[in-house]
């Protein structure tokens, strides 16, 4: 039922209002004395060198891609788990086959060194 979700939207709205109010309360209650040094990027007291908008390790992208692959498969397992008892041995073996295929991919990922961090 869609009406069941009204409280959820309300809850999220309350959270967002809380965040917006608290995130801007310092504008009203706090002092306001900006200087160039105060607004510069913090780099442990040194003059900031270049910007932070630089290239970073490709491994982070790899982890993100692998996450999507595995996470979709986990979401797929949820309906199966909820109906597990009515599916019986047939459902179990189906899932076993699915997991074996998943593990072949997992083995390949590890052998390729995609999860190797130095």
């Amino acid at each position, binding site marked *: 039922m869609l009406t069941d979700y009204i409280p959820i939207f309300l809850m999220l709205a309350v959270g967002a209002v809380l965040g917006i109010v608290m995130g801007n309360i310092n*504008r009203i209650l706090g002092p306001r004395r900006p200087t160039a040094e105060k607004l510069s990027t913090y780099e442990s007291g040194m003059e900031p060198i270049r910007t932070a908008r630089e290239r970073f390790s490709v491994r982070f992208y790899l*982890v993100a891609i692998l996450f999507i692959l595995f996470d979709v498969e986990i979401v797929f397992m949820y309906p199966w788990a909820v109906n597990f008892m009515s599916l019986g041995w047939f459902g179990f073996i189906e899932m076993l086959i699915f997991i074996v295929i998943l593990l072949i991919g997992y083995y390949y990922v590890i052998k390729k060194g995609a*999860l190797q961090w130095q």
Partner: protein
Amino acid sequence: MIAIEALIKIVVLVVIILTIVAYLVLLERKISAYMQDRIGPNRVGPKGLFQPLADVLKLVLKEMIVPAKANKFIHALAPVISITVAVGALAVIPFANYIVIGGQKISLLIANVNIGVLYILALSSLGVYGITLSGWASNNKYSLLGGLRSSAQMISYELSLGLSLVGVLMIDGTLQLDKITMAQSGGLWNIIYQPIGFLVFVTAAFAETNRLPFDLPEAEPELVGGYHTEYSGMRWGLFFLSEYTNMIVSSALMVTLYFGGWSLPFVNYSALGANLAALVQFVTFFAKLGILIFVFMWVRWTLPRFRYDQLMNVGWKIMLPLAILNLLGTGAVMLALK
């Protein structure tokens, strides 16, 4: 009517939770102090009990500093995402069964949706955005590194978190959190059936909430403050607030999934009358929650921090296979016993 009832419940719950969070910070400081043979905050009020008030007042009166080179809009948006997600997850946690006011049955669950577990997992995935965006928008190298590490860590452990729950879902056959509680209130708690699943879940929950030993995103000695280095005042406070709220949410999830939720064994709730029963359930739930939160703090002040490669190795090469084995083992045993 539904909306008004829900809004009242939401406001009451949010006030309760925010108060608890404020005192959790004090509790954490006290616990860390006693573990390190110090006294901890004891100046503000009797035994330092008004310390949280002083902390909030200090944060509120700070100057708001937004770095000149930061992306202003996303810098402001990131803490709002974090707190929205953290508070939103509370909507499906069953703190007690129901109360009766004027002959009307009022459920104490804010939103009784049939996808409770899935909803919480979805929100905890969204939580990554708050941290990653804050790291990127600050235009600071420490923040960027903290945000990147955090997103990689959270999504890695999200997998084990999701998989470890499947065992519980198989046993109880539902994603609805109050039905999972009901299923346990008659018989044994799920932790008896799912010890390995629980261990995986606890470890993943620590990583999801960025708590030690998995707090690499904000590892102070190397990254200053990590993703919130460039935040000040209440915006910084919002990150803190959402971290503690997340801790409450994951502890509450553990209580509900593995420790029987608000139920106690051998208690006949129908003999107590609805309102008294609800009170007992409420107290029971928060007592269990308190114990688990104490464990969170205990671990934080006991274990040293992991190295990043160790963290990723544990997540992908130990937790994930363990969770899959647990899932298959649970299935095989359940079918063999049928």
